[in-house]
């Protein structure tokens, strides 16, 4: 299975970039799981998005510019997400005076 | 009348209660009981001529019709009656007006819904007994469940929710297996003939491999065994009975418990004769029946609650019927059918009597009574007669059924029948102490001294039961005659298609060792 991915086309920096991407993503995941503060969790999500961007850019070295186009859209969505997300956090904070995720059970009726 | 030659009588019997039930729902609360009583009485009067118009020499179905319903799947509205179902239909229409009348003063809340439920239940019950399309049968079978669930769950006693849910889940679990078996039959039929059909006749013509038969039989048997109920699937029964309102108990014991046996006789046996006559299957069913007889009686004997006691006696009685049916002899099956009617009559009456007492004292604990024969002589008389019928005293209907069952089963399974015969001892061990502790002994409680004897309505309700108890005890001929042709046909089918059935019928066809009968006829 792994062979068929053909990572060799990335070149050495590209390969490193994919590794970095994976490690950053894992760090982001750890962050999401071990933090309670909604804002930091949010930041970790940004980190994960960024990790994904690294991988996409690395792949664009092999497959052409489409990777970068993709990153462009990811950033646009991330920006929108950041705006809405932060607004939600503000709204929640107004209501609960706290941004501790464990204190909310808003997903359960 | 012409309708008795056509299916219309059966269709009317199915439809009238539906309309009656709807009328109950829309008319004023105070009128509901009267509407229900009139509807059920009309139903009974309408159904009664069937007893005479029924051609007892005909083994097949009568008053038959088959109208396509869901054509794509070959599902049709097919109804008809034969010797196995006629008595069941009449038992249903007989019990219902009495159950309704017995609820007049018992039910005081949500009367409209209550009587509507009773009437919808009637439709379901009659439908089950007359349906000749297995899909239709299944629909009626499930329709029956819903009103009963509400009857227990809404108008029941303290633990009504638990009991209602237990009743529902137990029964639904069984009937789903049955649905699987029915669909499998339809599939087999499709494979064999290329057309979809759920018709009973089509399935009868089907040739099914022995192993498949066993699986299908298991599906049917579980559904029916739960409904009967056979040990060890019986524990829903005492709870349901104890919590159900009187009418619910009467219908439950009087009619619903018969569905299981009826299912065996109508579907499981004739459709799957090889499985049904498989020695292992036979011995399992007979053993469970036997255990039911003894176990039901034993547990009944130590019950402190009168209604629960009667509920357990049902387990014992139905155990008798099971061994009668699976004894696979004419006497056993005819006795079983007769005993179904008997059980409906005597246990129905017992539940009514206990309900009448409950209305007065709001307790069913046997220990709360004692000596009430002094203040309620008419009640005492009725309870003794009905109780004796329940334990099968000769001269009452209970004896005829039990005797035929035991005689029949003894010919094929002597040990089972012999052990089952000891059930008569235990029957006395549960019924007499109950009668004594309620009616006899000293009247030492003040609450009991003020008890009023049965009023006119209650007496009128009991009269039909008492008449039937004696009539069927001394002259069961008319009832037995109507079952004969169909039962014989069933046995012949079991013989030709079954494995051990052959043995049974060969035995029957041999001339009896002694060639002569009673002198009276010879001379």
């Amino acid at each position, binding site marked *: 299975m792994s062979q068929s991915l053909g990572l060799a086309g990335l070149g050495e920096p590209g390969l490193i970039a994919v590794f970095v991407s994976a490690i950053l993503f894992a760090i982001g995941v750890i962050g999401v799981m071990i933090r309670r503060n909604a804002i930091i969790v949010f930041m970790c999500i940004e980190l994960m998005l960024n990790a994904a961007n690294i991988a996409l850019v690395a792949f664009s070295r092999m497959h052409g510019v489409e990777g970068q186009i993709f990153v462009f859209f990811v950033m646009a969505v991330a920006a929108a997400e950041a705006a809405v997300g932060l607004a939600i956090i503000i709204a929640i904070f107004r209501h609960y005076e706290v941004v501790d995720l464990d204190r909310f059970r808003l997903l359960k009726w | 009348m012409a309708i008795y030659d056509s299916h219309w009588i059966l269709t009317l019997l199915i439809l009238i209660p539906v309309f009656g039930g709807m009328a109950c729902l829309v008319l004023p609360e105070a009128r509901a009981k009267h509407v229900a009583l009139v509807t059920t009485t009309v139903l009974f009067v309408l159904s009664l001529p069937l007893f005479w118009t029924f051609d007892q020499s005909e083994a097949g179905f009568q008053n038959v019709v088959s109208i396509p319903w869901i054509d794509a799947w070959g599902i049709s509205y097919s109804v008809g009656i034969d010797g196995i179902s006629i008595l069941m239909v009449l038992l249903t229409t007989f019990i219902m007006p009495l159950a309704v009348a017995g609820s007049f003063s018992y039910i005081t809340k949500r009367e409209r819904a209550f009587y509507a439920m009773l009437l919808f239940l009637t439709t379901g019950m009659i439908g089950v007994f007359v349906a000749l399309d297995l899909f239709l049968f299944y629909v009626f079978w499930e329709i029956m469940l819903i009103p009963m669930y509400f009857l227990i769950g809404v108008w029941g006693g303290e633990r009504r929710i638990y009991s209602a849910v237990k009743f529902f889940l137990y029964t639904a679990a069984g009937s789903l297996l049955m649905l699987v078996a029915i669909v499998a039959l339809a599939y087999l039929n499709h494979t064999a003939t290329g057309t979809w059909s759920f018709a009973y006749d089509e399935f009868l013509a089907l040739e099914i491999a022995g192993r498949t038969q066993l699986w299908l039989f298991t599906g049917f048997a579980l559904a029916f065994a739960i409904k009967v109920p056979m040990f060890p699937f019986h524990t829903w029964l005492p709870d349901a009975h104890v919590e159900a309102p009187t009418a619910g108990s009467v219908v439950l014991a009087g009619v619903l418990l018969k569905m299981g046996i009826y299912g065996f006789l109508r579907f499981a046996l004739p459709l799957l004769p090889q499985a049904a006559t498989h020695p292992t299957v036979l011995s399992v069913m007979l053993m469970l029946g036997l255990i039911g007889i003894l176990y039901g009686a034993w547990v009944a004997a130590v019950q402190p609650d009168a209604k629960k006691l009667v509920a357990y006696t049902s387990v014992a009685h139905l155990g008798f019927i099971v061994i009668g049916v699976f004894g696979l002899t*004419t*006497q056993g099956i005819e006795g079983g059918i007769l005993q179904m009617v008997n059980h409906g009559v005597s246990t129905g009456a017992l539940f009514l009597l206990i309900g009448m007492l409950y209305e007065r004292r709001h307790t069913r604990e046997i220990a709360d009574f004692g000596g009430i*024969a002094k203040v309620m002589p008419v009640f005492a008389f009725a309870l003794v007669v009905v109780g004796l019928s329940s334990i099968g005293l000769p001269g009452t209907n209970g004896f005829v059924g039990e*005797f035929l069952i035991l*005689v029949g089963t003894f010919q094929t399974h002597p040990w089972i029948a012999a052990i089952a015969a000891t059930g008569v*001892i235990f029957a006395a061990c549960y019924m007499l102490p109950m009668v004594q502790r309620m009616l006899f002994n000293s009247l030492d409680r003040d609450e009991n001294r003020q008890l009023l004897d049965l009023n006119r309505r209650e007496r009128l309700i009991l009269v039909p039961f008492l008449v039937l108890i004696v009539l069927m005890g001394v002259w069961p*001929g008319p009832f037995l005659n109507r079952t004969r042709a169909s039962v014989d046909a069933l046995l012949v089918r079991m013989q030709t298609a079954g494995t051990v059935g052959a043995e049974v019928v060969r035995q029957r066809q041999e001339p009896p060792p002694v060639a002569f009968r009673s002198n*009276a*006829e010879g001379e």
Partner: protein
Amino acid sequence: MVSQVFQEGAATNFHPVLPFLILLFPLLGALINGCGAFLWRNDKMVPALIGPGALIAAFIVVLLNFLGMSSAELHGAEISHLWTWIESGDLRIGVDLQFDQLSMLMCLIITGVGSLIHIYSVAYMREDPGFSRYFAYLNLFVFFMLILVLGASLPLMFVGWEGVGLCSYLLIGFWYDNKDFANAGKKAFIVNRIGDAGFLIAMFMLYVAFGTLDFVPIVESAGGQLAYGGLLVTGITLLLFLGCTGKSAQIPLYTWLPDAMAGPTPVSALIHAATMVTAGVYLIARLSVLFALAPVSQGVVAAVGAGTALFAATIAIQQYDIKKVLAYSTISQLGYMFLAVGVGAYTAGVFHLMTHAFFKALLFLGAGAVIHTVHHAWDHGGGDAHHHGDPNDMRNHGGMKAFMPKTWIFMWVATLAIAGVAPFAGFFSKDEIIWNAGGFGYPILWGVALVTAVLTAIYMTRLMVMTFHGKNRTFGHDSTDGAKHIHEVPALMWVPLGVLAVLSFVGGWVNIPEGLSLPIHVDWFHHWLEPVFEPALLVAEEHGIHVAHASPVGGGEALWAGISTLLAVIAVVVTFRTLRARAVPTEAEATPPTGFARLLYDKWYVDELYDRMIVRPSLALWRGCWKIVDTAIIDGIVNGVGQGTKLLGWAGGQIQSGRVTTYLVMFMLGVLLVLGVLG
């Protein structure tokens, strides 16, 4: 010969005269009185007329038929078909009445003695509030008893068999507000049902063997159909005998009968002495041919009979309740009858059945008269609560001879009859049984029967002495109140006693065997029943069983009859003289006996034994079935499945915490899973 008289009638065919009337009269009586119990509860005139009237009417019809039969030459049975009862497959059971010599005889006894007891009851029960109900039950009993003896098939007989059990149950518990009485009725019914189960199974076996359950074909073809001494016939007969031990109170199912004395005394006389309890003997006589084919069963019947006779007699010696003495005496006498039918002397058994019906009914009615009187004396005379003990207790009687001379004489007639003193009725019947027991080669049983005869004389004399002789103790030892309050019973009660006394005296003369070497010998009874027992006797003869004309220790019939009557007389005289001299404490003063007497007084502790060995373990088992099997195991599983489902749902619900992080963890794990599987 006297018997010639009966034979010389024209040999016309016998046809039953209005056979259904025999049953209809008591049934109508029961129905009318039953309605009366609800509708005209306080009217005593109707039941007083209808109750005995129905019986007398039935008796007249029976008598007509009897005369008709004796003037005809009837061989075999005449069946009167009423309607078809059960018809299913090969099985056909009609409501058929069988008229033959045996059933006619039984009908005569039932309606005859029954009529007398009904008449007696009118006076005895006069003050009871349940007067109408009482006659309803009593008439119903007679109806069922007549079905029992007239039924032409086993199932129909079974109808009567259980029907009389029902009436017995109702009448024992007649005064149902007394818990002990109600218990006694229940016990009678349940114990009887044990036997009935045996009866049922025997019926099934008979049906399988013969394809019919009618008596006539079974009796006629039994010899050819069943192997002599075969397993099948032995099983059938043993199971039938199990039924008999229940109904006729033999070991091991006898315990209900002493308790059954809770019922009104005329009931004890009719049901528990004269008629119902002899049903077992009747059954064996009816199916004698089957028993003749099963020597093992015969041995069992004879041994159980003899054993019961001796066993019950020993208990009777130490009882103080007058009715209990008579109850055990009944059990003992029934043992004699079973001994007779067991050794193959069917006629002797039926003969003793008949004479016993006379003298035991008389004894019970006499005892009833005493009890009635004592009861009244206490009610009307005694302001002193101290004296209100048990009117049945003989220690509260004594010296009744002076107040109730008629009753006293009649009771002595019965006592001498049961003791077997010639020429009273009991002598002839009992002597024939003892003689046959020896003659058919059962020396031990013969000895037991002789010993029991002596014991019988002893306990009966003890009863007479304690009740009628000595000083009156009803109001204590020194009171003279007795003279003021104790009277002879009214004519309505003593006249039936008188009639029974005459029958107890002459009843045995229908059968005076040749072997006694008396100037006159009558074999009418033997001749009358001959057609009924012919098949059985033929079977016995085929297999080489004959009566030896000598006792096991030598000597002819006449010698041993003389010896036995002499023994009886000696026993009576010795007991009388011994006990008369002895002072009897009143019930209140008495202390329970000690030693062996205590064992007899407490009836060998059989009731206690049954309670410990059977009743309590059964109840424990049943309770276990309920609490453990039903509630704990089955419902445990059922509820467990329910709980398990709920638990699963709860666990699923826990995952749905509503916390973002939980969902994130789930999401990540899901991603890992998908990648792990697909990657």
